[in-house]
């Protein structure tokens, strides 16, 4: 078993040596990830893991990739995407230009889902989707726009439940077990690393989507990041969180109004 003090030491190393600040992450989850990595990579002791992180930059990369959780899906929670289709995109129709920020986008499934919605609403041409994550390696995946073909059946079902009426397979080309999504979609995606803990606002957006990222942060860090989102939203912009995340009891709750049952808030102040 690894105790708290050891984790603190490791987190201090990460910050002092590399500037990665995980100290305000949810401890329970972080600890699980570290224990898991320790056994996955067969370190005889925690000290050994710590030594590797300190001395081996390639291992650092793996460490950061593995202790953050990168699991994601296309059209996850179809009713959320349906609400985007029905309630948000029609409002964007009158805007000359649409900027959307996917913060913590992981390998990009969510960003491509959004691009498909925009295309179907005839808005893609005037849109830009900013896809950011702390992990450079997941972003390589967004850049390629290639996802496992085995997932497509499920994604297609979710797409249909989100209100999609096309044949989902028209959005990609299948090849060697891979689905490569259309260039028309990826052309509108701007990719960059961005650390929500330490980086600041970089643009003004009409919609910020940050789903299942805040659950890894403690309450204070959540508040800080929500303020960053608030500062990065235009007047009457929208903020979308994961199904179990909330603005309730947060520092910015009075500046937002929840739209409906989905976790989408409108900025009102």
């Amino acid at each position, binding site marked *: 078993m690894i105790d708290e003090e050891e984790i603190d030491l490791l987190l201090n190393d990460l910050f002092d040596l590399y500037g990665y600040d995980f100290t305000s992450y949810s*401890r329970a989850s972080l600890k699980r990830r570290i224990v898991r990595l320790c056994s996955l990579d067969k370190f005889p002791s925690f000290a050994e893991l710590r030594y590797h992180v300190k001395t081996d930059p390639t291992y650092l990369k793996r460490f950061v990739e593995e202790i953050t959780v990168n699991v994601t899906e296309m059209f996850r929670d179809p009713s959320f995407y349906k609400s985007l289709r029905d309630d948000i995109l029609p409002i964007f129709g009158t805007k000359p230009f649409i900027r959307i920020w996917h913060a913590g986008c992981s390998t990009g499934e969510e960003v491509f889902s959004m691009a498909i919605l925009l295309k179907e609403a005839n808005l893609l041409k005037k849109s830009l989707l900013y896809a950011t994550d702390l992990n450079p390696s997941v972003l390589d995946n967004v850049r390629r726009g290639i996802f496992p073909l085995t997932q497509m059946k499920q994604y297609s079902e979710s797409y249909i439940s989100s209100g999609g009426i096309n044949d989902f397979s028209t959005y990609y080309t299948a090849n060697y077990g891979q689905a490569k999504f259309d260039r028309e979609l990826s052309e509108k995606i701007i990719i960059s690393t961005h650390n929500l803990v330490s980086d600041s606002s970089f643009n003004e957006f009409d919609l910020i989507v940050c789903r299942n990222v805040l659950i890894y942060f403690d309450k204070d860090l959540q508040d800080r990041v929500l303020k960053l989102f608030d500062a990065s939203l235009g007047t009457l912009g929208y903020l979308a969180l994961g199904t*179990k995340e909330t603005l309730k009891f947060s520092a910015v709750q009075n500046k937002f109004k929840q739209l409906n049952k989905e976790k989408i808030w409108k900025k009102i102040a």
Partner: protein
Amino acid sequence: MEEDRLETSCQLLVIGGSAGSLDVLFKLLPRLKAGLTFPIVVILHRRNSVESFLAELLASKTVLPTREVDDKDPVVPGNIYLAPADYHLLIEKNRTFSLDYSEKVNFSRPSIDVTFESASEIYGKALVALILSGANEDGTQGMLCIQKRGGRTIAQKPESAQMPFMPQNAISRGAVNYILDIEQMSTFINELT
């Protein structure tokens, strides 16, 4: 040893169940008395989204306030909390919940092992765990962990379970202190303080 156990107060009861466990809860929850002095956390394997009204359904069977957990909700005595579909449920040192969307464990998310282990780290010997009907190994590892930290573990009597495998697996692996049927469970829980 045993006496020690009896004297320890219960600060959290965790219940894990899979196939066939919903029926048990429907019978057990109505028998729980109002004003229990500890919170109850329920981890159920469920088929995605189909059972999205599960919290409401469970709430209708008990006088105890019952709801599905949101991220960072505080763990408050006297309440029943249901793990949301498709997230692992963890507990922080400051006794709030954290959700986690990481890989499935035992083919399950939420995984019973994940919550049991996390809870035992925080509550130690003040934790009581109950494993119900199911066809999966999930929960056994967590119960072993709870026992090691001095917590108490209960399995549904396999003969009374629709799917005996899950409680039986925990029993066979030596992870269980008490084997109880539904009637006995409710008495046991109502007498915990």
